[in-house]
Structures are given as C-alpha cells and as structure tokens.
C-alpha cells in the first residue's frame, strides 16, 4: 500500500487492517477509514465510468459533495466512497453508468 512512512509533523494511527474486494480482487485497507482512501493506497484511481460518454472518474472533493467517487458497494450503487467507512469483507465495484438500485436491502 502506498502509505506515507515518515512524516515530519504527523503520526498516523490506523485502525485494524482488513481485507475487502475491489472488482473481485482482494485488497487490504484500514477498518473505519473511507473506502476511497483504501483504494487510493492500493493505486486504484478509477472508481466509475460515466453513463453517456464512458469517461473514467475518480475522486475529487473527498468531502462527500461532488459525486465523482460514487461506486457500487455491497450491491448498492451511488455510494460516496470518500466518506463511507470501510468494513471487512466489503464488496467494492467500479460503477458503470447510473447503477442499479437493488430491490432488497443487503
């Protein structure tokens, strides 16, 4: 993971390391930290593909206001991955277009 090893001012206290999947691939991240952070640390930059022009999108504002980082998480689309905490075993997928809202909750 691409984490900052030594910082002149800050000390980072990460929570528990957990495994999740991104498009079927196993990855590691820290529980309770935003999904987008875990993806970025694993060098994943593309989170979704737009409906009309098929443009790749990643994150932009990181505070849940811009919609660039929407992904499908555990079957639910349009999840703001920049403010949604990672849980062990989460299934994170690239969102294509507007996504399909599941008829039943997870």
């Amino acid at each position, binding site marked *: 993971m691409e984490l900052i090893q*030594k*910082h*002149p*001012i800050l000390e980072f206290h990460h929570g528990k390391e957990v495994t999740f999947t991104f498009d079927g691939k196993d990855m590691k991240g820290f529980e309770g930290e935003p999904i987008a952070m875990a993806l970025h640390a694993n060098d994943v930059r593309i989170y979704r593909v737009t409906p009309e022009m098929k443009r790749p999108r990643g994150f932009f504002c990181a505070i849940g206001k811009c919609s660039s980082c929407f992904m499908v998480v555990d079957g639910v689309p349009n999840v703001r991955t920049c403010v949604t905490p990672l849980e062990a075993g989460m299934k994170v997928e690239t969102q294509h277009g507007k996504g399909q809202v599941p008829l039943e909750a997870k």
Partner: protein
Amino acid sequence: MGCTCNSNDKEKLFCSGVLVENRPGAILPPQEAWEKKKGGYVVIECPQRIPCNPCATSCPTGAVKPFADINDVPSIDYEKCTGCGLCVAKCPGLACFVVDLTYGADEAVIKLPYELEPKPAKGQKVKCLNRTGEEVSEGEIYTVTEPLKDQTTVVSVVIPKKLVGEIRAIKVVC
C-alpha cells in the same frame, strides 16, 4: 502586497514570494552592531501586512516590538534582541531567522526553521539554498533543537559569511 507587477524582473520575483531588497518588515540588522553581536540578531522576512502577530507575542524581551495593530509588519528593537530564536520556532509563516556574524572570520551561523524529513544531525553537511531554492553553498549543522516541542525544528547552520543575505533554507541529503 504593494507590488505594481509590471514586467520589471525584480517586481516579478517579489510577486512570487522572493525578497529582492529590504523593505518594512524585511530588513537586515544595522551592520556595525551586527558584526559584534554574539548570539546574532533576528532577521524577519515578512513584508506584507497580514493579521498575524505571534512573533511579537512570543518574544521574551520585546525585541520584536509589540504590534499596535495585528496587521502591522514586524519591527525590531535590536538592543533587546538576544538571538534566542523563539520567534524562529513560533512564526507560522517560517519567516524568522537569526544570523550570528561572530562565528568566525569567514563564517556565520544562521538559525532557520525546518519541518521536513529527513531531519539533519549535528555535524552533518547540508546544501544551502537561496530564496529561489538554488544551491549556493555547503553548510555544516551546528545544532538541532525543537524549542517549542511542536515539530518545528530550529537548525543552526555554519555558512559562508558572504552569503548571509542569500541563504534561507537547507537541503538534507542522506
């Protein structure tokens, strides 16, 4: 900021954060007294009026004169300056330095703030940078302290005396 920003090179540099000449808030100490002052004098490079005054409120002797208005630029009473360097550690803009011209015939010591990794160690040789980040000489680390225990390191570097008006940063190479 007080710059006209026509195509004059000096003004262009100043408008992008490079001091090119003395101005209020950014002056050198009086030369004669400076050459004799053991411990050095403070050199502040803060020429812009902004709402900020920790240099004055942290100075234990009042050498950085108390501000009448929080937007004032700093001004110095050299009689009171002991070269303690507390302002170097306190200034949020990293704009305070202490320069001691009495170290040697051709050498001076500059205290500057440092907040990067890797941290230098006493005796280590470092590159000395001018205000545009160009390497202009080598220097040797004299002391490394953290006076306010707040991750701002104050580094004393032995540098060529003729470059005291230029050197304002260091590059630590491992």
